């Protein structure tokens, strides 16, 4: 519409003058350059500041390797757990009408409004040596804090709402007609879910998992509180970035950061492809 107006050389009533338009686009580009693009470029240039060999040397470090491994383990446990939860929650909330539904939805969103540091703190208070559970766990020799279980718990907490939030609006839009048809044709409950519901929600599910995984691998505050920062043992990649940075080992810190930045870029590309290709199959209501 704006283009038609331009070609006729007439100012449309519902668009701004070309000058204002260019000014706004220019302002936006400058702002995004300063706020988003420069930091991304900085990660890569800082990592390569001392050349490519130094970059790869930093990445080949044994502690960095164990941080990568730990990040994969933690995300590998936390994301599937929240995937199962997300499907269960969205099935109950989107497919049924029951009392207290709005309240339940609010509770599921709760971790989003809690500071990551507080998300870690709650587990320290629950399992720490001074807590009620602490001595009991110790007598059974169960280590939760400063170990993988604590990291997983904190990660599950912060990524709790991701999959459910993506699926609930999508499944609400889709309604229950497909499932009712399958059931009336004699399918069992599980068959209905596997062959009717799951294919309907698969792209939305993938979208939610993608965002959940990005946050799980990149979480810093919550994990930092429960990790204890034991080198080569309980440091995930973001924590390794912090430790290297605080030791003024900037090349190594930014080298690990490039891996996380690449993860973020891959996430963005896949997310955009999903939005472009399957915009109908992921919820239109929410775009993040």
């Amino acid at each position, binding site marked *: 519409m704006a283009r038609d107006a331009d070609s006729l050389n007439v100012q449309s009533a519902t668009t701004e003058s070309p000058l204002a338009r260019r000014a706004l686009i220019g302002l936006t580009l400058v702002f995004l350059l300063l706020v988003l693009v420069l930091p991304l470029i900085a990660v890569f240039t800082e990592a390569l500041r001392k050349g490519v060999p130094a970059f790869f040397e930093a990445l080949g470090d044994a502690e960095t390797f164990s941080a990568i491994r730990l990040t994969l383990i933690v995300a590998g446990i936390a994301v599937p757990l929240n995937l199962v939860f997300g499907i269960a929650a969205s*099935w109950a909330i989107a497919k049924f009408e029951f009392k207290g539904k709005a309240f339940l939805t609010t509770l599921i969103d709760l971790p989003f409004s809690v500071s990551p540091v*507080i998300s870690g703190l709650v587990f320290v208070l629950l399992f720490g040596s001074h807590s009620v559970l602490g001595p009991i766990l110790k007598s059974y020799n169960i280590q939760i804090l400063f170990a993988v279980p604590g990291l997983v718990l904190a990660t599950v907490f912060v990524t709790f709402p991701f999959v459910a939030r993506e699926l609930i609006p999508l499944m609400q839009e889709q309604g229950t007609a497909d499932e009712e048809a399958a059931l009336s044709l004699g399918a069992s409950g599980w068959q209905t879910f596997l062959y009717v519901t799951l294919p309907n929600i698969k792209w939305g599910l993938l979208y939610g998992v993608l965002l959940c995984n990005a946050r799980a691998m990149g979480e810093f505050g919550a994990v930092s509180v429960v990790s204890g920062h034991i080198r080569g043992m309980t440091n995930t990649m973001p924590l390794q970035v912090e430790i290297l940075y605080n030791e003024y080992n900037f090349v190594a810190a930014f080298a690990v950061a490039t891996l996380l930045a690449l993860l973020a870029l891959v996430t963005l590309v896949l997310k955009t492809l999903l939005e472009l290709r399957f915009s109908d199959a992921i919820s239109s209501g929410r775009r993040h």
Partner: protein
Amino acid sequence: MTRHRTQRRWQIRQPSVLPGFGLALGVTLSWLTLIVLIPLAGLVARASGIGLSSFLALAADPRVIAALKVSFGTAFLAALINVVFGVILAWVLVRYQFWGRRIIDAMVDLPFALPTAVAGIALTAIYAPNGWIGALLEPLGLKVAFTPTGIVIALIFVGLPFVVRTVQPIMEEIDREVEEAAATLGATRFQTISRVLLPGLAPAVLTGFSLAFARGVGEYGSVIFIAGNRPYVSEIAPLLIVIRLEEFNYAGATAIAVIMLIISFAMLLVINSIQAWSRRRYGYGA
């Protein structure tokens, strides 16, 4: 069997032929209880165990008050700046066709995807006195990194997508006829935007503001690198919680956490009621 169950659950939910309600709700509630509710209840229990007078003493600690002021002040400022640029950005993305629009649209989500620690060290590298932008500002006497200004910059980064992604879908729904009507009635373009369009966007803008603000208050990873972390000046409340924990001062850490949560919820409550009011008055059904 379905009928039997329907009658039994009549009080709780409306009847449905779909199976699995009990299982799905059971999994949801137990997982929610284990992961979210019990840990948060533990925090509240711990706080109530401190006792009111010692809790107040912990809350009145000048360093705690200073940290809370820094956290809430910088988050408020960053959310305001994000509202201004976020609305302009959403407008440009929704209304204008230009080369690279798709890429910019995708880039807006970068702060959601980029780990906060990475954002933190990258922003510090740029805004430090010897960084790309820091070096330009240094001769002007402007210091960004290691000051509260640096905190605001980091919070602008993490909060931006919240505003854009809340306002953008509502902007897409705006009915062009409203603008045409305003124009035919003699309004200038500026008047149409400021008097007709923006009031209708108010509920969405407020939602975006409150999301960005809430995120900023609690933000830790991207801030601690750029803040300088000087007590009373650029020390944020989440960092003070971490410091208290490292001192094994659990009561102190708990007190700060509870105060943060109370203030956050109170502010969100106020913002939500303003939002409900503005939605009734102006909203596009947002």
